[in-house]
Each structure stands twice: as C-alpha cells, then as structure tokens.
C-alpha cells in the first residue's frame, strides 16, 4: 500500500470540520490565502468557529465571506482593519464577533511554537503596551520580556503551489508567509495546491513543508485571485 494524501475535491477534504472548531487560515492578505478551502468551509455550514489568521478578510470572498455568513465567533489576528474589509467591521462594530489582536511576529511565533512543542516563550514585543496587560513579565539580562503562549488549532487550511502524494509542499513567492508554520500547528492540516508533483520529481532540498505535517491535499488548479474577484464584485456563496 502506498501513502496517498491526495483527495478529489474540496468537499472531500473538508469532511471532518465541526462546530466550534479552531481553524488557522494561511495567507497574508490575499497571497497564500486558501480561498477555495474557505469556500468549502462555508459549504459545511459549521458555526461558532475561531479563526486564526493574519487578517480578517476582504470583501465577500474567502474569509470575508465566511465572516459574512456568521460562522465565526472569534478572530485572532494581527491586522483586522483593511480598506476592503467589510463583513468583519460590521459585526465588530455591533459586538457580534470577538477579536484578539496579536502582534504579527508574536502571532507567527505562537503558531510555530505550538507546532514545535513549546508551550510558551518570552518576547520583548508588546512590553509596555496594552497588549502585554495581564501577561507574565520576566527579566532576562536586565530587560523585560512578556510570556506568550502557543496557539494550536483543530484544522489548518493552507494554500501551496505543489504537493506530491505524501504532502511535501512548495509555495509561490510571498504566498509562503504563515502557511508553513500553520501546517505544523493543527491537528489536521488541509491543503489546496495548484498542481501535483510526482514524488520522483520533488527535489528534497526544495521542499518547504515536509509531509509529516500534512493530512489532506486537493488540487485547485486555477484559484481565485481575491483582489480581482472583489473588484469584479464577486461574492460567495
């Protein structure tokens, strides 16, 4: 028997998601954002989700659409305020969605540390600011650092460029961003890729995410470009 993590459709890979799940979404803005997987998540109609992502969505595509469908209870992100972010803004201003603001580097490190089995670490980031309030402070070499805790998820939805049947991933340019570290931090990591590579053709030096972190992969060969779709007035569902 051969290992095969490739699935036929977005619906197939999304079958285990449940109400109340904590879900990481890769991407920084639209680059690396798994828009089709998020649409699959909308189709599941799961609700009360906690979303961990860098942003809070744009327009009514991808995360913006998921939030617009009232499936999200809480967003943990670094930057929820974008010109085209409309659905989050509306719910937030009406106190219908929670927000945990995390500095971008701390967000990245909290995710990476979950994947690395590190439950907590110290950083100087946010010391002396409102974002450090209520957190433990410790002195190293005369400087103050704040204790930050790791951030795990039930699922990570990831956009990558290629995968082989094992789930070895490569990314395209700055679409890499949060994706590789989110792959490490979830109980189940689900990936959309533009194309499949034969494992014989994968250069082991070039793999960015090793297969060990990946559970399910499906092909979306021509993914939506979010900014163009929004400019064209496209929405989901």
């Amino acid at each position, binding site marked *: 028997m051969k290992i095969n993590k490739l699935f036929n459709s977005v619906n197939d890979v999304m079958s285990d998601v449940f109400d109340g799940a904590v879900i990481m979404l890769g991407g920084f803005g639209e680059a*690396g954002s798994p828009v089709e997987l998020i649409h699959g998540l909308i189709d599941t109609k799961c609700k009360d989700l906690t979303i961990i992502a860098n942003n809070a969505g744009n327009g009514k595509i991808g995360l913006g659409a998921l939030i617009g469908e009232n499936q999200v209870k809480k967003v943990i992100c*670094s930057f929820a305020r974008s010109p085209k972010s409309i659905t989050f803004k509306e719910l937030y201003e009406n106190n219908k969605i929670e927000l945990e603001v995390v500095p*971008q580097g701390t967000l*990245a490190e909290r995710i990476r540390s979950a994947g690395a089995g590190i439950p907590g670490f110290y950083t100087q980031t946010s010391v*002396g600011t409102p974002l450090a309030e209520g957190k433990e402070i410790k002195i190293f070499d005369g400087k103050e650092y704040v204790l930050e805790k790791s951030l795990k998820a039930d699922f990570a939805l990831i956009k990558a460029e290629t995968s082989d049947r094992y789930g070895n991933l490569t990314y395209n*340019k700055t679409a*890499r961003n949060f994706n590789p570290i989110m792959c490490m931090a979830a109980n189940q990591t689900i990936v959309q890729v533009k194309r499949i590579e034969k494992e014989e053709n994968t250069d082991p030096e070039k793999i960015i995410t090793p297969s060990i972190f990946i559970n399910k992969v499906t092909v979306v060969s021509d993914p939506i470009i979010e900014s163009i779709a929004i400019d064209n007035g496209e929405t989901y569902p």
Partner: protein
Amino acid sequence: MNEFINIGWTKDEIAKKIANEFPHGSYVNLGIGMPELVSKFVDESKEIIYHSENGLLGMGPPANENELDYELINAGKKPVTILPGGSYCHHADSFSMIRGGHIDYCVLGAMEVSEGGDLANWTTGKGIPAVGGAMDLVVGAKNVFVMSQHTTKDGSPKFLKNCSLPLTGKSVVTRVYSNLAILDVTPDGFKLKEMYEKIDFNLLQKVTEAKIISN
C-alpha cells in the same frame, strides 16, 4: 499652529535625509506609507537590502502591469518585485530577522513620540485595533527611525513629554525625522541634530511639547 504643517522639508527631502543615513550594505525595513519614499533616494554609491516582513528579503520596486503577481506582495499588500540576491521565507523566520536584531534600520510613521523614545502609532483607541508588525519592528530593529510631520493635521504637537495614545513600544525610537527637524532620542530627551533652515529654534520648540536640547 497648523501653519507649520505646510512649511519645512518636503516628504521627498525628509526621505532623502533618511536614505543618506544608511551605510552601504544595510538591511532596512520601511514602514507602509510615507517611509516607502525613502527607497527612491538611495544612490548608486551603496547597495541596501530591503526587508518586507511578509517573508521577502531583497524587495525591489513596485511591480508594473506586465510583471504583476498577486503572490509577490509587500507588507502593504501591494504587488512588488524581488531583486537578484533576494529570497523568500515564512513568517516565523521573517520575524526572527526582526526580533532577533538582524534588521539594521526600520523607518516608521508615528502618531506620537515621547522624549523617552516611546512610540504610539497603531491605534487611536477607537475603531478596530490593528497592530500588524509594528510592535515587533520597534523592539527588534537596531535603529528605529520615525518619519512624520512635526505636528498633527490640526497643529497639535506629536513629540511629547509622554504619549497619550496606547503605545507601540516603550523606549524604542532612536531618531525622529520631521518636516522641521531631525531629533535624536537621548537619555536626556530629544536632542536637535538638524533644523529646517528657514525656522529658528524658538519656533521649533514652540511646536514641540517636549523640551529639545539644542546644543
């Protein structure tokens, strides 16, 4: 006092002063907005490598129509280019560069700066709070330059004894570049490094809440 917003160095002139400050071979992160101007004024006598916190080292100019790739963007989410010698990395690695002290200079905008080097630039306390990478940059970069108008749009001082807005970082700003002056943040407070040629020190002090050391 809002006449002072319209005098002094232009944004381009400020950008050029900052650009001249970087030594050859520096690794630099330019904040979104006004700081992005700085890269236009680095001359051929030196090579500077630009870091964008979304995992891009060796960032080139904005992408033009025929080289547009929505998966090659900068921290402001605009399509850009990569120069030879550039590389991509994931977010934890990118912020290791920042937090680990590997970025030589970062240039950021400011709402308020205190004489102790405290910076407030991420939230007015109203609306959706959104911090991005600013808090990491200010604690991590070796030199934190603020690039800003000297006063707010309604003429209120931005360079203060103490910040009134929620902080981005405490004792983090190294130097301030405004349309009216360049001020070093020293243990004794703001110290004048350079002043716009057509004003005098009394005027500068008048539009600055914190005391400026002039010698």
